[in-house]
């Protein structure tokens, strides 16, 4: 696609091309975060995220310490509709393809408990992982065998790291449980 105003037959100017590329990158900025926070008793903590239409997001959460290791969780879309609601869950995973563009809200509630405060871990991912260099994200040629091998290994290592996170959380949970008894 040539930028408007370019002379016919001439290649598009580099700054404009870069601008288009950046605009493309802005369209669906991949991002995600995992955080552990403390939720006091009878409290609710909400997080908000601006999601584009058609983007897929996923939320994993797990309660690490406190009481019966359970928490209420709900996710609302920008129109206020509840797209996910669970009560007294210990851990769960939820994915959704955003139909509406706007600010989605996901909340963790400990309002049912009057004396135990909870520590909750959550991992919220939107879109895909960003490439390590911006211009590696939109190649026109196919990947070489070496690069494909790198991609495969990268994905496998990500699985290992996720598995390690899972075990680390379990260990923390068991350690706290052990100390309490």
């Amino acid at each position, binding site marked *: 696609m040539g930028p408007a105003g370019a002379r016919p037959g001439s290649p598009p100017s580099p700054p404009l091309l870069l601008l288009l590329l950046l605009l493309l990158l802005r369209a669906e900025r991949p991002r995600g975060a995992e955080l*552990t926070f403390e939720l006091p008793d009878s409290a609710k903590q909400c997080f*908000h*995220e601006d999601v584009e239409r058609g983007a897929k997001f996923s939320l994993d959460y797990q309660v690490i310490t406190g009481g019966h290791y359970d928490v209420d969780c709900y996710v609302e879309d920008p129109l206020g509709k509840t797209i996910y609601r669970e009560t007294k869950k210990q851990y769960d995973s939820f994915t959704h393809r955003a139909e509406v563009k706007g600010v989605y809200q996901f909340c963790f509630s400990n309002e049912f408990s009057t004396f135990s405060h909870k520590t909750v871990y959550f991992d919220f991912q939107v879109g895909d992982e960003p490439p390590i260099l911006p211009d590696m994200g939109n190649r026109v040629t196919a990947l*070489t065998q070496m690069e494909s091998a790198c991609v495969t290994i990268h994905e496998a290592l990500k699985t290992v790291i996720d598995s390690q996170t899972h075990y*680390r959380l379990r260990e923390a949970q068991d350690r706290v449980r052990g100390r309490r008894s």
Partner: protein
Amino acid sequence: MALPLLLGQLLALMGPGDAFYLEVRELEEKCFIQEIPDGTVVIGNYKTELYDPAMEKYQPSPQWINLFVFVKDPENKNLLARQYGPQGSFTFTSQSPGEHQICLHLESIRFALFYDGKLAIHLDMQLGERTNDYAEFAAKDKLTQLHLRVQQLVEQVELIQKEQEYQRWREERFRQTSESTNQRVLWWSILQTFILVATGVWQMQHLKSFFKAKKLV
């Protein structure tokens, strides 16, 4: 014409941009926990916004709103205690393995207590290999794309190794705790048995002398 637009887009791409945000009031402290091995670099990109009731949306914070960041290491020592502007990033490197606590709160540095004002903190915390600036590597050492990919893999493996080492340390600590608890329980039960037996013997003796005194035996 395109250049200012280009710069605008570039600036928008830097920083946390549209990372998820949480709503806070002024001086309200929000704390997060990171359980990390030692030597891990953590970078937190943040952006704060102030709610404008007239426009019913969040606007970027004015310069007189500052973010205070406190990071405590597992031994409760202060690793980072600094004041930052309304937008930017904070970073720290863990010195010892374990649970680090990162607390944030916003303060207005002039005493403008805006009525019940709602603030939003956009936060994007990354650690390990995601903190690398690959563009810098590429430019400085003139590395190819493949080299960068392999570099990323090397960093990931190092992260995995560090996490494994951390879990090994955790297991060692827990084993020591369990062994010392076990020993203490053993000594306590021996002591308890001894006390019980001694009490029993004393009771018998006392009863015997009582009966003797009452001329019943």
